[in-house]
């Protein structure tokens, strides 16, 4: 595995004040390297999404530090942070969040358009990514016309269209049947992950554990274990 991309140290996040305060994440220390596929697993409410949001520049921690390629992201301005997310990070949300009134192609092109790419070029580019996820023929359809697994792949195409270094998935297989879920993760592992990228997946789904390089366990806001998957040691 390559160099370290993300380093989190002493990350903490709590919600509410006084008696109502819940500590979602405490004292989280870990790092992610290029070429790594990291899983974050743990029971519901253990702080996985919160942690993911803090390392991807979406949720400001109450304490600790996150660096991406050596830069302290929470010292950046909002605009710098937005730029960082646009250029370095690709998100796949659990319920995809595709615009229902746009075609799949236009949905995939959104990061490119945000990067100020000219419209036709953005569409040409987006089509390549749809091809990568095997949905080139569905380019002109609206997302609602696609199956859940296909929508997931459109969301993946959108996430990788901006050529990010870091890909973040929250529960990518939660709403898919076992087979489709496995296929998607296998696809991510073989086609999307490379040694200039890292993939972080939050999941409950033990059927897909075999694809992980590292599995990080969380419980009650704490990181309770870090396992390297020896099946994949090359």
């Amino acid at each position: 595995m390559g160099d370290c991309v993300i380093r989190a140290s002493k990350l903490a996040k709590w919600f509410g004040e006084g008696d109502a305060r819940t500590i979602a994440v405490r004292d989280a220390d870990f790092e992610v390297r290029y070429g790594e596929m990291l899983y974050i697993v743990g029971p519901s409410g253990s702080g996985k999404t919160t942690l993911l949001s803090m390392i991807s520049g979406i949720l400001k921690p109450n304490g600790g530090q996150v660096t991406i390629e050596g830069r302290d992201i929470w010292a950046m301005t909002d605009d710098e942070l937005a730029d960082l997310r646009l250029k370095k990070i690709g998100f796949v949300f659990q319920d995809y969040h595709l615009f229902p009134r746009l075609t799949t192609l236009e949905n995939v092109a959104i990061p490119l358009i945000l990067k100020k790419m000219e419209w036709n070029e953005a569409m040409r580019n987006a089509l390549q990514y749809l091809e990568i996820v095997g949905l080139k023929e569905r380019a002109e359809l609206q997302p609602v016309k696609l199956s859940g697994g296909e929508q997931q792949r459109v969301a993946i195409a959108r996430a990788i269209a901006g050529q990010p270094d870091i890909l973040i998935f929250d529960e990518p297989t939660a709403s898919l049947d076992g087979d489709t879920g496995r296929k998607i993760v296998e696809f991510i592992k073989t086609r999307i992950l490379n040694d200039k990228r890292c993939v972080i997946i939050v999941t409950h789904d033990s059927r897909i554990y075999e694809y992980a390089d590292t599995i990080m366990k969380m419980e009650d806001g704490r990181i309770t274990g870090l396992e390297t998957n020896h099946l994949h040691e090359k």
Partner: protein
Amino acid sequence: MTGLFRIAFKLLVNDRSKFTALLVGITFAVFLMVMMMSMFSGILSRSCAPVYNIGAKVWVMDPAVNNTVSSIPMPDYVLSSARSIKGVSYAVPLYYGGAQVKLRNGSYQSVTVIGLDDTTLFGRPELIEGRIEDIFAENGFLVVKDAEYSKLGSPPIGSELEINDNRASVVGIAKVASSGLFGVPTLYTTFSRAITYIPTTRFTTSFVLIEPRSTGDIPGIQREIARLGYEALTRQQFVDKITAFYTYKTGMGTNILLMTSISFLVGLSISGQTFYTFILENLEKFGAMKAIGAKGRELVTMILFQAFFTSLTGYGLGVGAASSFMLLMRMRMPDYAAQLTFSILGFALLMVTIIAGVSSYIGVRKVLQIQPFDIFRG
């Protein structure tokens, strides 16, 4: 940025039902506002038409007079006193009254008769047929060729009408800048003939028209006339007085204001509400765009674009509908009074901008508030 506008446009237009509702709401509001104000403005300008047509710089009248139709006759000394006021170049009497004309077929038609000063013919209209001197010929009358002309059976020069058992012969056809409010034909004759043909009260002068030596003399003239117990108004002041009468004393102004405000509020609520649901429906997606890396101001621009695009399109449709309607009406009804002015267009545009502003403000607030983390958590 153009790409984002295109995305914003597609998000809006592809949502057919909401986009239609938005357009219908705004078009409807603009149509109503424009119609209402045009009607009002048309009626006002018609009611002031005689003041412009006669064209005198200063009008002397009884202070109780609110418009040209309801003139109150003044004694002769007002005219002679006016003539002796310093700064008056000349002063002439004007007769302005109504009469019944008996037509060839035996039916009666109301007309307005304007009697011009016998020596100067001050305030005479432009003739399109005939010679002005013929107004002095026996029974000489001029007929104004406007939308009302046909109500007299479109009499050509040489034809005869009957006013109070007096014979009136048409000696000229005139045209005026704008026609009056009440939809009756207008006849011009001399002052002396007017008061002999038409039964009058003891006093006969409806207005005294004054030509001042210079505009600087007007305030002095007004003071002197006021001393006589009468009122001297400049053309603009008289127009303003008539306007104020119709606007405030008849309740027409408040009514129009009320209707316009209601159309505005209806438009605002329909489009504000629809736009709000539109934003709410896409809110999570906007949140997702934020997570992906869209900046707040980019999303704001998209929303402003959507709001203003819809509003201006609705404005165009509304103004188009209103003006075609007016055109159509004018083809059917020559007297149709509504007139579309630039200030009405400007005002409606302002109202539409407010609708767009308010709608987008609500949307913008929502979108700026949405936290990508909440989207992420699902």
